[in-house]
């Protein structure tokens, strides 16, 4: 389809309570830059139920316009309802660019939605720019497990679409909310939603982990040697500094901790403020999932471990000596 405007859209995914997911607000940061270069508005698109909070925050973080679709059928994410809503809006307004956070729901929504529009989508971008020559968005993303970066463009189809990894960009500075809010009356009939959420099994008490939203992650790898250290050594440190426990594939494959904790290519991609890698060698598949962390600390006995190549601070030592001592030291310093 043809673009009707030069506007750039950021899809703001919402939680069930109507608050925005962090990544949506993060995308308003590069979104502002790209929208300016494209010569159009920065538009936030909010779909959900009781989303006043998300609409307000989108304005505070810099959207020129917020387009809202609200309804009980959007309280929980479903592929069918969300694709219909977004497709309806894009057909009506014709933005030139659409950005979606690469959360599990965003990665479910993105391809389905772009395919309905028969346009191109670049997945899991970690860097964005405008190509000076053509004015297209230059979407840069890792491939081959992080071994290769590719810059991709969608020259002849609009809107050009991309999903962008959480944690890569920082939320823009908050400012005065000047956004124009447009409420669209759009609803999806129950029979058009072809999936049904039957049950939610939260992880067992104390096991719940939101790696993608965490500011601090304390991760363990093969060097943990067994399951106990995750609870007795890493968890106390994570609890103390407001973090969560992650793991490498080696630890998960050994059955020491659940897959929900896995960081890396076959697990979660994370971008916390602080990532503490304990007994993790630093295989490229693991690094692909955490290299955009602001600060990386590695604790490993093996001085040659490749994790030290990407660590801001590398401690050479036995994690079972260093981590408990670190926990105690931080307690003292913070006291």
């Amino acid at each position, binding site marked *: 389809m043809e673009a009707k405007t030069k506007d750039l859209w950021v899809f703001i995914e919402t939680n069930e309570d109507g608050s925005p997911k962090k990544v949506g607000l993060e995308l308003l940061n590069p979104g502002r830059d790209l929208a300016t270069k494209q010569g159009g508005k920065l538009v936030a698109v909010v779909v959900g139920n009781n989303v006043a909070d998300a609409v307000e925050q989108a304005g505070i973080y810099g959207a020129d316009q917020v387009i809202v679709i609200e309804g009980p059928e959007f309280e929980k994410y479903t592929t069918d309802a969300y694709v219909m809503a977004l497709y309806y809006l894009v057909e009506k307004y014709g933005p030139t660019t659409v950005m979606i956070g690469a959360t*599990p729901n965003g990665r479910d929504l993105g*391809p389905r939605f772009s395919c309905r529009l*028969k346009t191109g989508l670049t997945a899991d971008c970690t860097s964005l720019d405008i190509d000076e020559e053509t004015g297209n968005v230059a979407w840069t993303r890792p491939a081959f*497990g992080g071994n290769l970066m590719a810059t*991709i463009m969608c*020259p002849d189809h609009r809107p050009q679409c991309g999903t962008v990894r959480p944690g890569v960009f920082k939320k823009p500075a908050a400012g005065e909310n000047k956004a124009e809010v447009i409420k669209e009356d759009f609803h999806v009939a129950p029979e058009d939603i072809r999936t049904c959420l039957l049950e*939610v099994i939260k992880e067992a008490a104390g096991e719940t982990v939101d790696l993608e939203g965490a500011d601090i992650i304390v991760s363990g790898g093969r060097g943990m040697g067994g399951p106990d250290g995750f609870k007795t050594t890493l968890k106390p440190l994570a609890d103390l500094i407001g973090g969560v426990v992650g793991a490498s594939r080696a630890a998960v494959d050994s059955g020491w901790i659940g897959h929900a904790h896995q960081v890396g290519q076959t697990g979660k991609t994370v971008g916390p403020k602080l990532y503490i890698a304990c007994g993790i060698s630093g295989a490229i598949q693991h690094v692909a999932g955490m290299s955009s962390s602001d600060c990386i600390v590695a604790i490993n006995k093996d001085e040659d471990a490749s994790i030290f190549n990407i660590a801001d601070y590398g401690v050479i*030592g036995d994690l079972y000596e260093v981590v408990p001592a*670190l926990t105690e030291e931080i307690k003292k*310093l913070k006291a």
Partner: protein
Amino acid sequence: MNILVCVKQVPDTTQIKIDPVKHTLIREGVPAILNPFDGYALEAAARIKDKDPSTKITVVTMGPPQAVAVLKECVAIAADKGYLVTGRTFGGSDTLATSYILSHAIKQIAEKEGAFDAIFCGKQAIDGDTAQVGPEIAEWLGLPQVTYGLECEAVEGGLKVKKEAEDGVQIIGIKCPCLVTFTKPAFDPRYPTIKRKLAANRAKFEQLGDGFDPEMDPAYYGLNGSPTHVKKSFTPPVKQGGIKIKEETGADSAAKLAKILVDNNII
């Protein structure tokens, strides 16, 4: 149930090394394997067949002629039959174009094998990592989808899919026909038996080549039918290692690290 599993042959990305001088991928000598996530999709189908032996599992792959190796592997593991989609005109297809070709191939295969109740795919391939082709096939075929599946169970008229969610696990009910993509479950997929391996070696696979479906519009496949184009590719800049800490004892190192983290307001 009549299940189709979409699979891809990929380079084993864990074996890829970077040329230290030219900063390019060294692809030579890297083994081609069945995409691990597709293996999980096949395992999910095999588990349905374990409970209901009347289940039929067909696999399809798109790729060069040597991709037939993954069809053999799938037959050795659990599949009954396999199809190879291969053709020069398909080369250079991006995910949208690939899903277009596959959706047409699936319609043709269904004419021979019967309409599929479910199409299973891996969540993503480990070379491209896009996670796009599965949902795009679902869109072209108008099927409902569930992504990030862990395991599933056949129920009256549909499937109950256990899927990974951000804060735990969800059980989703979905009516057949449908498409489900699978991520890594808590269990290991089965290995082929010797008997099945021998049978797979003798298996013949039908091909769908260039022009297999005259209804297909060249505007939607191949390099020219792909909306996205790779402008450039490069190896990521190597981050220089930072400060190393190695004091007399682990406790001393920990004290030094704690001070750095606190002083720099990192925690």
